[in-house]
């Protein structure tokens, strides 16, 4: 099925009230008397396929919505997708083992964030479905806060449920060590990845996780672009983490953070 884009420019004239249903998210955009109101809520199935624009007849946001108001400038707002603002932690569907000297390819679906901009000004950056927080580190005293994904790592792309509000990542796990590598959780640096629109799905940059031949060090390598499965793509968003300067920096920044031991 062809990808149905929800991003792009939205014309919102004075006294224009519009609503976007995107998966579990309901987004209300209203403009009146020089004020832009953005209201949203997210509930229900995070894998919902719903996607539709509609016109509202009122400015008021129903109860249960979070509301922000801005001084309105032009009558045009840009919606654009972004990847999560922290790393995500994913589990394999079943216990996954990469034999010594082998390589395994896995796929993962992550929720997107919906960003609203007016000109160059970012107005809001909202998760379409907010994942739970999680902790990733060697102990409860040391580690980092990320998002826990309910979706699982799958070894087959066909089994992934493709949605326009989710991004697919292709992850290559290479085990160069002489011991089999059991994977229970994977930490993936989503804020470091760029986003692309393919013909049928939204894709992140390709990721390669390498367990070193000493069996103790991990390396995360971010591929330059979308994977081959994405086909012909167009760039949607650059990485959130602007500190990415070169592949070398990227790799070494991510060292030791890839695979759980």
């Amino acid at each position, binding site marked *: 099925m062809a990808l149905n884009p929800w991003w792009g420019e939205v014309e919102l004239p004075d006294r224009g009230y519009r609503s976007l249903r995107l998966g579990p998210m309901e987004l209300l955009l209203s403009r009146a008397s020089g004020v832009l109101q953005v209201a949203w809520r997210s509930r229900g199935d995070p894998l919902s396929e719903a996607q539709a624009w509609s016109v509202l007849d009122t400015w008021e946001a129903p109860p249960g919505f979070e509301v922000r108001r801005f001084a309105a400038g032009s009558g045009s707002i840009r919606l654009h997708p972004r990847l999560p603002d922290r790393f995500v932690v994913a589990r394999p569907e079943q216990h996954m083992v990469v034999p010594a000297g082998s390589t395994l390819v896995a796929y993962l679906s992550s929720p997107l964030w919906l960003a609203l901009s007016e000109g160059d000004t970012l107005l809001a950056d909202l998760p379409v479905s907010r994942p*739970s*927080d999680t902790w990733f580190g060697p102990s*409860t005293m040391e580690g980092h806060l990320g998002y826990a994904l309910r979706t699982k790592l799958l070894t087959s792309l066909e089994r992934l449920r493709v949605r326009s509000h989710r991004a697919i990542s292709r992850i290559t796990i290479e085990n160069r060590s002489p011991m089999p590598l059991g994977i229970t959780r994977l930490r993936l640096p989503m804020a470091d990845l760029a986003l692309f629109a393919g013909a049928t799905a939204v894709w992140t940059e390709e990721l390669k996780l390498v367990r070193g031949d000493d069996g103790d060090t991990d390396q995360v390598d971010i591929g330059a672009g979308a994977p081959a499965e994405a086909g012909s793509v167009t760039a949607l968003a650059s990485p959130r983490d602007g500190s990415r300067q070169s592949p070398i920096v990227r790799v070494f920044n991510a060292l030791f953070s890839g695979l759980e031991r």
Partner: protein
Amino acid sequence: MSEALQAVLEASVDAESLAVLGRALVLVVVGFGAAYVLRGVAYRTVARVLSEERAVLVRRVVFYGVSGLALASALTELGFDLTVLVGAAGILTVALGFASQTSASNIISGLFLIGEQPFSVGDWVQIGTSEGEVLAIDLLSVKLRTAQNLYVRVPNETVMKGEIVNYTRFPIRRLDLLVTVPFDADLDAVRTWLMDLGDAHPRVLDEPRPMVRFTRYGESGVDLVVAYWVVRTEFLDLKDALSVAVKRELERHGVVLPFPHRRVVLVDESGVARGLLPETHEEGS
């Protein structure tokens, strides 16, 4: 002739005294100026690698050390014999030691406190019965600001002797909720509901996993501990929200949190039960 010589000698003595006095003054002024400058340099240098408290300590040591040296040099210039002062210092130390045992104890405790660093400025701690944000760690005392916006001064000796709880040392905390469910509740189902509640809440950490543990058979029901891990900064908000959510979740499944109750059996003199009072609240029984 002799009068003229005396006048010249007096004048030269006065001039020499003035010169000595001038040099001593210069030593004091330059010394204190140097101490002022050096303390700033030392603080900035040390603050890059050490904590704020240690940097402040180094700043004070540098300032008082350099100032003391300048003062000693000035006194020597004025002709004072400092070896006498050193001897007197021993006696003075003993005298001061007796007179200021508490202060000395606080100062020494303060040095240990700064060295050990059980907390830093800005941390939220509990020291004995006082709980609050650490405003300052000084040589004599620790200053706290409580949740009620009260200023509390805790002597360093008390801090060192007592138990310290630092709530902000680690980034995540376990939130324990004590829940009592009726004896006839299905404990496996209760455990599943409360685990699912934690899993569904976006602010409850997925890892470490939520936990529901049996504590004991209480007077009114089975006591459980429901443990959710949360980010430290959200602890209080989530404690409130999750306490309500747990109660609602149990009620949604028809489990009502039990209140303390007693069953009273009336027995006559021969020991035969004659009646049963209806179950009632503890206050009413």
